[in-house]
């Protein structure tokens, strides 16, 4: 009788703990593998621009000739530092000194691209724009400055 009572309480305890186990499972199978993605190369990007304003020509940064570069639409250039996972503002003059590879996978096969999520808990009413790092079917968010209007320019081979 006592053993039956204990096994019933155990079953109820497992039932009560089910949401904890569910979230733990997602952490182990989604979060942990994605957190192993480590970017190996810095890259240049712009935000707040209306369309691409820079491109890579012969391994160097160059303005797109027919882009809208009026004062209000001028995009801000950022360098994403892979070692610290942080962004720094760079002037176009400094960025033009870098040796760049055009868009596509990095040397180790990473891809950086904009994405959108379903928004924040608890209402999920508005989509959130973000930038993700992808490789081998895994992806995770990158801490870029502003993800809206994100435009990837190229990988930095040498500064």
């Amino acid at each position, binding site marked *: 009788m006592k053993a039956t009572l204990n096994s019933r309480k155990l079953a109820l305890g497992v039932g*009560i703990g089910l949401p904890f186990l*569910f979230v733990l499972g997602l*952490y182990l199978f989604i979060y942990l593998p994605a957190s192993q993605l480590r970017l190996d190369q810095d890259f240049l990007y712009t935000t707040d621009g209306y369309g691409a304003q820079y491109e890579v020509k012969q391994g160097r940064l160059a303005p797109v000739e027919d882009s809208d570069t009026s004062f209000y639409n001028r995009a801000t250039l950022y360098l994403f530092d892979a070692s610290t996972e942080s962004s720094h503002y760079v002037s176009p003059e400094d960025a033009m000194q870098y040796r760049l590879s055009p868009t596509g996978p990095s040397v180790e096969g990473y891809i950086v691209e904009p994405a959108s999520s379903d928004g924040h*808990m608890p209402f999920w009413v508005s989509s959130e724009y973000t930038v993700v790092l992808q490789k081998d*079917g895994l992806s995770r*968010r990158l801490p870029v400055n502003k993800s809206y209007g994100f435009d990837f320019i190229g990988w930095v081979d040498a500064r």
Partner: protein
Amino acid sequence: MNKHEALAAINVLIHQANLSKQDILTIFNETPAPTPTDTPRAARRKLSLESIAYYIGGGIVLAGLWTLVALNWSDMPVDARLIVSFGLAVMTYLAGVGFERALPRTEAAASLYFVAIATLPVGLATLLDIVVFDPAAALSQAAIAFICAVCAAGLYIYHKKSVLLLAATLYSTWGLAALLSHILEYAGYDADINGVALTSYYFITAGFSYFCLAQLLHCTRAAALTGTLLGLGLVYTLVAGLVLEINATVNPSFWTFFYPALLAGGMYASVRLARNALLVLSTIFLVIYILYVTSRYFSDSLGWPFALMLAGGMIIGTTILAGKLRARFTRPA
């Protein structure tokens, strides 16, 4: 034996020296006080309305205080915001302690404890904002929710008010949902990961967890929570199931067929546990489901006029069925 015969028999026993005054007084002292189940139905209803009035009163006081604070929030310095937001929670809690001592047999203290624990997240969010964490971020929300859950559980252990256990349960659910949101925001961009579906499954597990908790608390001091937990668990499960069906990529999906089984489960539980509230909830969701299925699957093939007639007929049938079940098997929640 009527009253006069009983008194006469007692009189004889007293004269025979078989019964003393002390024996009579002992009988009076040892007679147990009436239990809540002995009280008339009208009295119980009155007590219940009294409790509800306490909670409504507490809520109105809280709304008034927060309106006052919100109107002056932008003019307040940072430390004043912290004092006001935490201060409200602490002052309401202390008022609850005072009421518990002055009116120990009423629900006044419990309602104030509930208001205090409901106010605590605002104080914690203000603190996080001051120390440069975004209070709206998923991890901040998880931290706030778990701190509140621990506080509510601690206060429940101390004060034994079941409403605090309910608060701890709700905060735990919020905290885990915030952690899930953080996981999806960080790594949920793979095409194979469906954030809405995972969130729905989480709420189904939470609903199941509430059912288990209700079962565990059934014969304890916190048995009053059973109905609330069953109702919340059913709402979580039925809303999540409906979201899964609406977001299904194939038509008809697994949930198109399984959702009626969930509704039937809710109705069966209402009969088995004799809970009218579960029957009402299941019926409401059945009506919503009938309208949804009609619009999704039959409006094109039958046309809207026939689809509406079909939906109306099914809703009338559902209502008749629910009425018969309620009359025969359930009791008011």
